[in-house]
């Protein structure tokens, strides 16, 4: 036989047993739940049980274990462990047959047995409820872990919130829920579960729990409504609030992780772009300078970032002369590198045309103006050297002064005579100058990454160690040695301070 699972089944099986004890008697089983004043006739054996129980109890609301002869027959009622009442009413088969004292004892004993059986039923029911409750707790924990994994996988933030809302509603037995995303006072997004509903119809604080967090200037609020039970809506428990908080935290963490991942990917893409730009720039900056008969030339470019805004070159021209160029774009990084590329391309093209230097500078000014934003321009020194006689036609467009060490030991500064290239969209007249580099004389071109190199105390290199003095004080036999000594001196000065700007230098020595 299957296990008795409720009071109705218990009454039915008990009545069968009682019928064997009280043969030919009519037997009724009655039941009254703890919160009810009405009796239920569970087994109707035509013993007029309802009449008997009324007579038995009289005005009393309830009774402890008791037994009484009634005008109809014999009745007994017993208060059960859960405050419900069980009653048995017997009616003899004929009016002449009376219930004996033995019958009374028998019924009393049977009520005892019924009480024990009912207690077992309650135990089983409680045990089942406990197992169900424990399983539900396991389910909640498991689902919390699973949801954490799932929300971290989802691509769409909307499904992420929807999933968390569904899980929260399911695990707390809420009948419905909503996620609202606000920017300021404005609701920008709403997700409902199980379907769209109006929150105005829901009254009472106990019928609602909520949690919220802020992310990217948005307030995310999760609300659950109406905790369900088999008896109707009941107040939410503390654990429900904890579960909702935990699920919302998972969404928050997932959104933050996604944000950080996107940022990381963006950085990676940027690094890739920078690597491409650096590779392009490497092709622009000369690896080896050309040999110029009667001269020794050396140069260096150390960008402060992976790509720089400085440029130098020594370009052999068709007529046997050489273009000496050094330039510095305002700014750093990819925008500066792009402008360096433009300068290199236009300069190479214009130099092939063998146009006058002043005209070349005007053209460069125009094209750089068109190719750059308002805050971008280029300072440059361009010189055309005729190696045979040492004549240098030069033009300084807003660049640092170039130093020329004369044979007599004096240093001549070749300063700016024109505006930086691309600074203004006008036909500014650039004027070139001509000088002669005699045998044994040295020319030094540099960018402000050298003069403005800073140490840990934020002191400038040129202020503490004037570059002019270094130029004068270091006259090695080879140009490459001068560049090496210069870089060593700058590094010694800056120490562990990061390189703040691109460092570029070009050194030319006319052999004696």
């Amino acid at each position, binding site marked *: 036989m*299957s296990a008795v699972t409720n009071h109705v089944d218990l009454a039915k099986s008990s009545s069968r047993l009682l019928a064997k004890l009280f043969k030919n008697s009519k037997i009724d089983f009655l039941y009254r739940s703890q919160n009810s004043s009405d009796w239920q006739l569970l087994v109707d054996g035509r013993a007029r049980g309802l009449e008997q129980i009324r007579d038995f109890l009289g005005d009393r609301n309830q009774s402890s274990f008791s037994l009484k002869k009634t005008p109809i027959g014999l009745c007994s009622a017993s208060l059960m462990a859960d405050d419900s009442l069980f009653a048995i009413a017997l009616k003899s088969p004929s009016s002449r047959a009376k219930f004996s004292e033995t019958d009374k004892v028998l019924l009393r004993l049977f009520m005892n047995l019924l009480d024990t059986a009912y207690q077992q039923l309650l135990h089983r029911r409680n045990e089942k409820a406990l197992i169900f409750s424990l399983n539900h707790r396991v*389910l909640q924990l498991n689902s919390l872990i*699973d949801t954490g994994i799932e929300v971290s996988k989802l691509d769409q933030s909307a499904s992420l919130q929807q999933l968390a809302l569904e899980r929260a*509603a*399911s695990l707390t*037995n809420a*009948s419905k829920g909503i996620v609202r995303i606000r920017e300021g006072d404005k609701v920008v997004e709403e997700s409902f*579960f*199980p379907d769209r509903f109006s929150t105005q119809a829901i009254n009472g604080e106990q019928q609602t729990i909520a949690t919220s967090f802020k992310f990217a200037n948005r307030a995310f609020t999760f609300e659950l409504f109406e905790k369900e*039970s088999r008896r109707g809506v009941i107040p939410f428990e503390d654990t429900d609030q904890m579960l909702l908080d935990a699920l919302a935290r998972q969404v928050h963490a997932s959104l933050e992780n996604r944000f950080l991942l996107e940022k990381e990917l963006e950085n990676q893409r940027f690094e890739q772009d920078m690597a491409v730009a650096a590779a392009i720039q490497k092709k622009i900056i000369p690896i080896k300078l050309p040999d110029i008969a009667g001269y020794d030339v050396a140069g260096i470019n150390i960008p402060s970032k992976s790509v720089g805004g400085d440029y130098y070159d020594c370009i052999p021209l068709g007529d046997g002369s050489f273009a000496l160029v050094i330039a510095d774009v305002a700014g750093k990084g990819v925008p500066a590198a792009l402008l360096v590329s433009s300068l290199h391309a236009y300069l190479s093209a214009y130099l092939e045309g063998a146009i006058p230097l002043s005209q070349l500078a005007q053209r460069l000014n125009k094209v750089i103006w068109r190719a750059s934003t308002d805050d971008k321009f280029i300072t440059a020194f361009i010189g055309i050297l005729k190696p045979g006689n040492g004549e240098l036609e030069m033009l300084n467009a807003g660049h640092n002064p170039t130093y020329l060490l004369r044979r007599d030991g004096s240093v001549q500064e070749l300063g700016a005579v024109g505006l930086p290239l691309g600074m203004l969209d006008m036909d500014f007249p650039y004027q070139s100058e001509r000088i002669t580099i005699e045998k044994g004389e040295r020319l030094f071109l540099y960018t402000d990454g050298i003069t403005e190199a800073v140490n840990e105390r934020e002191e400038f290199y040129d202020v503490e160690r004037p570059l002019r003095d270094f130029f004068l004080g270091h006259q090695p036999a080879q140009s490459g040695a001068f560049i090496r000594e210069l870089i060593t001196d700058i590094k010694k000065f800056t120490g562990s301070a990061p390189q703040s700007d691109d460092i570029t230098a070009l050194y030319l020595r006319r052999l004696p």
Partner: protein
Amino acid sequence: MDQPFALTSDLKDNCLVIATSGYVNNVGGEAIAKEFTRHFEKGTKKIVINLAKSKVVNSIGMSFLIEIIEQLEDAGGKLVFTDLDPAVEKMLAIMGLFKYAGKEPTVEDALRVLTSRK
């Protein structure tokens, strides 16, 4: 967004096939139990519940399903769930429903299993 709860039922080979959609909560569970009882009282003891369109079940809904399983167990009947969403399947497993009820990928599979039972 999910849809409001709804169910359809059909008798196939003396088996009751209930297909639900939406949240299986107090409302959904009660509706399933009602539909089950209506057929159970007429002697139907083989039940298939297709939860393909129910992705969310709460413990109140599950308590109704457990009652159905118990009644069928007492009566020598059988319940088989089909088309379970992985999350729902895991929930039912943790709550111990598959100790007494079966699960099959599709309704056809479930009917095959139930009709082969003596």
